[in-house]
């Protein structure tokens, strides 16, 4: 089977998140970058599915040229083909992102045929627009379900097992919902669907040789315009230090009693 995964490069801030002076983006001067966690799991899922059922994984990203780093990381954990849609450093709005991705996907599919599955992260870790996958699915006229934490190929359709169906599990409070989605399909994946592997030495070497195709897209901006980013105001109160080491235990249990959680 042929699977496409759309991923986003995001900064990896630690204890604090800073914004550039113009308020347009996260100040990443001292930060590393990573693949947005849901999408890292989507890549792993795609690789596992092709390991089980045969086929190839293509990874596509819309981002700065530096996002090639995330495509090469995907290569190091087993993906096969790579497409970069280059933009400047500031995010495109969700409509614009989705249109560019849909065009680029259509272009790949025109030569190679439709992907059986297209995976997105449920939402990007940074902007969190909750819509790009849905818009792309709609452009392509395909079904999509979000929040997916389990995928199996083959599902029941009209009482029979159908190889053309992806059975997807979506987590809800205290359980999950099951969807039987006919392929070609699009799914929005969440972290926890699997535990992504670390790259092997062999994978790292292969990733250096991976070929990244560049596909420039000029698409009109959408109706959501960023004015500025800022940190929420926080009330930080003094921390009461209850003690040092195990001798602090009585003070801790006093606190637990006070809060009424001991009863």
């Amino acid at each position, binding site marked *: 089977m042929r699977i496409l995964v759309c991923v986003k490069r995001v900064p990896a801030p*630690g204890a604090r998140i800073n914004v550039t002076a113009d308020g347009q983006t996260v100040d990443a001067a001292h930060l590393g970058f990573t693949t947005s966690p849901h999408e890292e799991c989507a890549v792993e899922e795609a690789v596992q599915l092709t390991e089980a059922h045969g086929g190839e994984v293509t990874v596509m990203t819309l981002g700065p040229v530096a996002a090639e780093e995330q495509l090469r990381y995907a290569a190091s954990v087993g993906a096969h083909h790579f497409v970069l849609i280059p933009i400047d450093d500031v995010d495109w709005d969700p409509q614009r992102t989705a249109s560019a991705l849909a065009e680029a996907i259509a272009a790949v599919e025109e030569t190679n045929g439709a992907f059986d599955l297209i995976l997105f992260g449920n939402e990007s870790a940074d902007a969190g627009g909750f819509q790009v996958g849905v818009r792309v699915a709609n452009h392509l006229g395909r079904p999509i379900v979000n929040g997916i934490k389990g995928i199996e190929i083959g599902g029941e359709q009209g009482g029979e097992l159908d190889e053309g169906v992806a059975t997807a599990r979506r987590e809800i409070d205290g359980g999950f919902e099951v969807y039987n989605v006919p392929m070609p399909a699009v799914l929005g994946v969440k972290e926890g669907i699997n535990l992504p592997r670390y790259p092997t030495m062999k994978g790292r070497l292969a990733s250096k040789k991976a070929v990244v195709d560049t596909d420039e897209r000029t698409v009109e901006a959408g109706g959501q315009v960023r004015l*500025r*980013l800022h940190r929420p105001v926080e009330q930080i109160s003094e921390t009461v230090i209850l003690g040092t080491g195990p001798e602090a235990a009585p003070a801790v249990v006093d606190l637990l009693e006070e809060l009424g959680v001991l009863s």
Partner: protein
Amino acid sequence: MSLLVICDHDRGTLSDASLEALTFGRPLAAAAGLEMAAVVIGEGADAAAAGLGAHGASTVHVASHPLLTDFGPEAWGETVVQLVRGTGATAVLACGTDRGNEVVAQVAARLDQPFVANCRSVDPTGDGSGNWTMTRVQWGGSLLEDATLTAEIRLVTVAHHVVEGVAAEAPASGTMVSFVPELDDALARTVVADRVVLTRGITLSTAPVVVGGGRGVGSAEAFAPLEELAGELGGVVGCSRAVTNNGWRPHSDQVGQTGTRIAPEIYIASGISGAIQHWVGAMAAKNILAINTDREANMVTRAGHAVIGDLHQVIPAITEEVRRRRG
């Protein structure tokens, strides 16, 4: 002209999230000069719709169709689209739950309109030229974005837990109108086919006490004392992403932006540095006790209480003291 609020329910009982959306929607509709309407979809919708006048909805559309008996993002999205077209609604609002955001994204894609997810505030008088302005959540709440929205039909969600759902001071008529959309059979492809119940009892998101462990715990086995303390306190164990990435605990135990948001009476966070992505999942805890060898760790400086020390000694000592006092 109206603001249409999408209300979610579980077999007739409105979700808290829906009440939040209605509470957020009332002043928004008033400031925008719009009537507030609501839509309730699927089996049990009648029962859920009945109380919505008290929450300020003047019209309540009750949508039913054989394809709407269970949730399906495409069928729900298409239903709202047809209702928007049929009633001339100029704005749509839902609560930014997974479902709420997914359904509004479906509406946005189908109407080819922008959609601003997870707003904390929305000003319909905006920039004075007809555009709305808003502040929305990024990074799961660690960062905010001021944005403008230019659209024929304004589609927004309000971030979950930004407002508390309360009844309207002046109830509206809540006139119920039934609505039967025309849905293509093909949309059955994304309707829930089955439902599996896994856990009953306390879960991470509802536990009164969460004992959290991070990289500082060191191994899967070393979580045993945390389990013991959680057991004593009627709570559950949570963890950081460093822990799930190492395979020490399942992802369902992860607290944070890409894990579970917790709101216990007390969160005991041990061996966790307190990165922003962890903090956003923990900050709704009423009290936080950090246990860390590093006095400068973010978790320590942000917590109300802290113990400086090795969690491998501190946690068993707390368990012992609890047992001693209980006798």
